[in-house]
């Protein structure tokens, strides 16, 4: 492993994604990417007593599926990196409680998929783990009751608001495989003073622009060098702002897609500015994107998950929303 420029890591041994799995809920299964999910649950409770238990179950399922698809057993995994949106990351701890794998909890809000992927890649690259697993999830109902109002409360959503995806994604990393992690850029916390909790895309866009610029700068590459650049959950507003911020810095994105914009059919499914949540980028990466790489349709992609690092307390106290974005360069070859 080598450091490239100021912010980017170069993985010389190229840890590989050996297995990946994505599971989702009913609304996601009704969206354009339905066929990319390994499993879908039509009951929002997943036959559990609470939504929190349901979300934990999503992680259990995704992690188990990814390990199985990698042709491995639970005991082969040396380390699991996991996180979610709930207080004290309970979806991860309860979801992975029974797996008996050394566990390191992560919190990066909706950027968690990229964060756990980077951590797992580093561990495999440096030999600390033969196999490492990255997993994250979100559930519309658990997020809604933690961050906003009770579900059955009748209110109108702002047009800039995003819809938390009910989904989980997991990837298993090890040495020698076709789909390889080549670079990673760990993002810096960026805050341009957005305080509106219903406009997370706007809060995260500066972080996304910064990480992307850092990566291009460090690697001396440009957007056209990649088949596709995926951002996590900027949504319609955040995407627009990202384009504008990059244009001001002399970069035009033509091969970009936002996971929050492709997971749902925005108009028909009434998700306003698009999807969000850890499960949004995780589900799209571990389902749609990696499936396309497996089929050879994509060979060289950038995956950058974005997160809004506030809590309900900080927001009520009038603090602005700090944003973060971590980037992973995945190549086939």
């Amino acid at each position, binding site marked *: 492993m080598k450091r490239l420029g100021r912010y980017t890591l170069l993985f010389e041994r190229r840890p590989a994604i050996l297995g990946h799995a994505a599971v989702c809920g009913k609304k996601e299964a009704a969206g354009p990417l339905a066929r990319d999910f390994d499993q879908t649950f039509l009951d929002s409770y997943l036959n559990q007593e609470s*939504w929190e238990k349901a979300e934990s179950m999503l992680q259990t399922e995704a992690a188990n599926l990814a390990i199985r698809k990698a042709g491995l057993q639970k005991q082969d995994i040396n380390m699991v990196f996991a996180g979610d949106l709930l207080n004290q990351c309970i979806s991860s701890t309860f979801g992975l409680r029974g797996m008996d794998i050394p566990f390191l909890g992560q919190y990066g809000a909706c950027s968690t998929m990229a964060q756990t992927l980077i951590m797992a890649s580093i561990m495999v690259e440096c030999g600390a783990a033969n196999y490492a697993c990255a997993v994250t999830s979100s559930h519309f109902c658990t997020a809604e009751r933690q961050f906003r109002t009770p579900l059955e*409360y*009748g209110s109108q959503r702002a047009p800039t608001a995003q819809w938390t995806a009910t989904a989980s994604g997991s990837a298993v990393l090890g040495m020698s495989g076709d789909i390889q992690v080549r670079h990673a850029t760990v993002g810096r916390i960026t805050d*341009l*003073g957005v305080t509106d909790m219903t*406009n997370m895309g706007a809060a995260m866009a500066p972080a996304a622009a910064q990480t992307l*610029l850092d990566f291009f700068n460090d690697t001396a590459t440009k957007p056209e060098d990649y088949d596709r650049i995926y951002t996590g959950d900027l949504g319609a507003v955040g995407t627009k702002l990202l384009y504008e911020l990059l244009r001001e810095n002399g970069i035009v994105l033509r091969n970009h897609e936002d996971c929050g914009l492709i997971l749902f059919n925005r108009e028909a499914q009434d998700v306003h500015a698009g999807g969000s949540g850890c499960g949004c980028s995780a589900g799209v990466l571990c389902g749609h994107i990696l499936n396309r790489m497996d089929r050879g349709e994509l060979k060289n992609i950038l995956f950058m998950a974005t997160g809004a690092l506030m809590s309900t307390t900080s927001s009520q106290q009038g603090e602005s929303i700090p944003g973060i974005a971590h980037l992973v360069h995945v190549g086939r070859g």
Partner: protein
Amino acid sequence: MKKKTPQQYDAMVQKASPHSPVLKNCLFAFLSGGAICTLGQALANTFMLLGLDLKDARTCVSISLIFISAALTACGVYDNIAKYAGAGTLVPITGFANSMVSPALEFKSEGFVTGLGAKLFTVAGPVLVFGISASVLYGIVLYIIGLF
């Protein structure tokens, strides 16, 4: 990245963010709120036909509307109506009923006392606190004015 002040970025955000459809929301609120009031009047007339006096009939209207909204909330229908109706369902007593029943449903998973009991007023609490405070203040003012 080129430096940007929060003020400059805020201007960008304002431009990029779509605004709520205020006119449409007002129209829907007017129609749905009006419909609820019409329903209330119809109920009042019915109760009076059944022999209640005006005061009792009005009390029964409130009870009926609260019951209907609570039932609709419990069935998971209320929020779907409120999505379009907005202030139309929020302002009448229906909104108050919904704001009590929805946390009750939501937090029962955390137990009867620490969940339902403690969280029952999470939405309605501020309305009660400031509503009751305002009415007390209004009462005092009215009393003082009455002295002269």
